[in-house]
């Protein structure tokens, strides 16, 4: 057991699966000798060689399209896109091939592949390096979209993603890549995809979030505990398909829900969760379901990104507002 960050635990999961399955191959820009821009694949090229860790030419559509061809032949490609903001050239392949191949061929060709990419703001990166556009992907049927929030979940969920018979988009919250460490070993334990994690049990209000925003969400829950407000905190972890059952169960208990996401609000995952709660759970609710999100603006450049990011203050204010309803 060693203390590992999210970035290191992803590396451990990749290493584990590469050691156990010769069909697992990595591909992406600068992932071999460089170990990727965030060093997530560091050491794997030296260990598994150029047949398993492939530096590709610089072209996202090609990285995704090649993965489709490789996966169709039974390989398990894990593609790295350097930043989520660069997925758009590859979006065509995701929408028209990755998400649809199983359905198109009635299950004859399946794509056991993973596309990994760091996402989210807060690290003072240039334009297009800080978006949280997970809702664009979650809207596509046929994909699974997974977002870990801690080193142990990154490890367990990535193992599951690699072993999944269907394509999984694995979004890595880069703001917390190295901010916390868990004691981890290669325990081979995959976490289920499609299930929420109940991070904190509480009875007054349900706080729902995923990825890096769980940090601020937990901070608010800690603070409010001192004011005798008992928050339940849910890490959604898989934003598609959503585990609404766990969220309903929690809201049935608390009657209140605040959803916290970094992404812009319009047509977002938070909007979907809120709509589900209102459509099917109105009688459970004591207060309006509330969303704290990034604004419906272009993600600002680094000097003003802190205006955009949901803060502890905004979350706390929302929770207190919701708590006023009796």
């Amino acid at each position: 057991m060693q203390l590992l960050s999210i970035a290191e635990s992803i590396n451990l999961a990749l290493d584990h699966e590469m050691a156990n399955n010769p069909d697992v191959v990595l591909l992406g820009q600068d992932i071999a000798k460089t170990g990727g821009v965030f060093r997530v694949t560091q050491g794997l090229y030296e260990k598994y060689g150029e047949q398993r860790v492939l530096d590709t030419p610089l072209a996202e559509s090609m990285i995704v399209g090649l993965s489709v061809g490789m996966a169709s032949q039974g390989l398990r490609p894990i593609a790295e896109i350097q930043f989520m903001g660069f997925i758009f050239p590859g979006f065509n392949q995701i929408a028209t091939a990755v998400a649809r191949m199983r359905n198109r061929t009635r299950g004859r060709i399946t794509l056991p592949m993973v596309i990994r990419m760091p996402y989210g703001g807060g690290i003072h990166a240039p334009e297009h390096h800080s978006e949280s556009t997970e809702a664009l992907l979650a809207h596509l049927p046929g994909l699974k979209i997974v977002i870990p929030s801690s080193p142990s979940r990154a490890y367990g969920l990535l193992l599951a993603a690699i072993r999944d018979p269907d394509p999984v988009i694995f979004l890595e919250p880069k703001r917390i890549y190295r901010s916390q460490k868990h004691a981890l070993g290669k325990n081979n334990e995959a976490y289920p995809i499609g299930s929420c994690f109940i991070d904190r049990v509480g009875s007054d209000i349900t706080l729902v979030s995923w990825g890096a925003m769980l940090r601020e969400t937990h901070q608010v829950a800690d603070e409010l505990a001192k004011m005798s407000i008992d928050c339940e905190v849910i890490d959604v972890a898989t934003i598609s398909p959503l585990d609404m059952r766990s969220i309903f169960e929690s809201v049935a208990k608390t009657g209140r829900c605040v959803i916290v996401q970094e992404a812009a609000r319009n047509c977002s995952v938070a909007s979907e969760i809120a709509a589900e709660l209102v459509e099917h759970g109105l009688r459970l609710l004591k207060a309006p379901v509330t969303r704290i999100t990034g604004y419906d603006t272009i993600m600002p450049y680094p000097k003003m990104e802190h205006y955009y990011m949901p803060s502890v203050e905004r979350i706390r204010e929302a929770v207190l507002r919701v708590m006023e309803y009796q």
Partner: protein
Amino acid sequence: MSISKLNTFSECKSVAHFNINFIQYLNEDGQLCAEAPAFCHDKILMLSLYRAIKLLHLFDLKVLNLHRAGQMGTYTGTLGQEAVGIGAASCLTDNDVFVPYYRSAPDLYWRGVKLHEILMYWGGDERGSDFADPRLINDFPIPIVIASQLLHAAGVASAIKLRQQKNRAVLTLVGDGGTSEGDFYEALNVAGAWQLPLVIIINNNRWALSEPNTRQTACQTLAQKAIAGGIEGVQVDGNDVIAMRAVTEAALAKARAGGGATLIEALTYRLCAHTTIDDATRYVASEELDQAWQREPLKRLKTWLITNEMLDAAQDANLEIECRAEVEREVEIFLNMPIQAPTAIFDFLYAELPERLLSQRDDVIKHRGS
């Protein structure tokens, strides 16, 4: 002023130069204009190539009628271009992988896909892409987004290379319009950079829907686009099935032997509209079309077969009856195919349907499209 003359301080030197060859064996009069490749002496093969071209020609006309009768969805015809797909696909072994494009009915047919499966796909039934022939387990379905398939083919070729599989290659096609897409260039680039066992054929039928080649590109040939990818490029008479087969066979042999990728531009002509719902008379001059009919592949091959005493008029008439019967048989299978269960729209999305979709699946059973 030419940019290459900008530097007045030193003598201009040419750092690289390229050449694109054109390959033809059988001219439009059905005469050989080069020494015939060895396979031309194989009467059974030559007659089966002829039969397939004829069959697809008849199939195309039949599908148009089905569409007009409201019995068929939108279909991308291959009238006049049959030799490209037939000639190319005839070089594939069961060991190879075929990645078609949306105008690949002839190649798919040769490969082993039944005409009724092709009709199912274009007639709106996903089962058309679940090829029944077990030898086609690795072959790709028809894609609609142009040039996207070239990257899939490159990915399959990468898998072959990574697994160090011997004697195995990938064949894929793209239309002339598809050569304007980024995915086309990305595929050429990686095919060259990684020395992939890949053969890409451009079915240059001169029209990307209503846009002629002159509006697509300033290139003299589409084959020369290979140069940017660092792979071999060649232009071939796509209406000459002998040339198509000879060139594809050589390119596949090279790929299987580890010699890397090839880009083949097949020059043909689209004698039909872009699809069954398109009216090509709005943009194709009738004189040009009349001239193109003089160069189509079926007539010239027939002339050659008769000259070489592989075929006579009676045999040709019999062959036509046989082909028409096969087309009719396949159309009947297509028309009588029971529709899938309504739940099939959910059944193949994921290996296991997520719980969240179960209520939607129940809903479609309850309402059944009502």
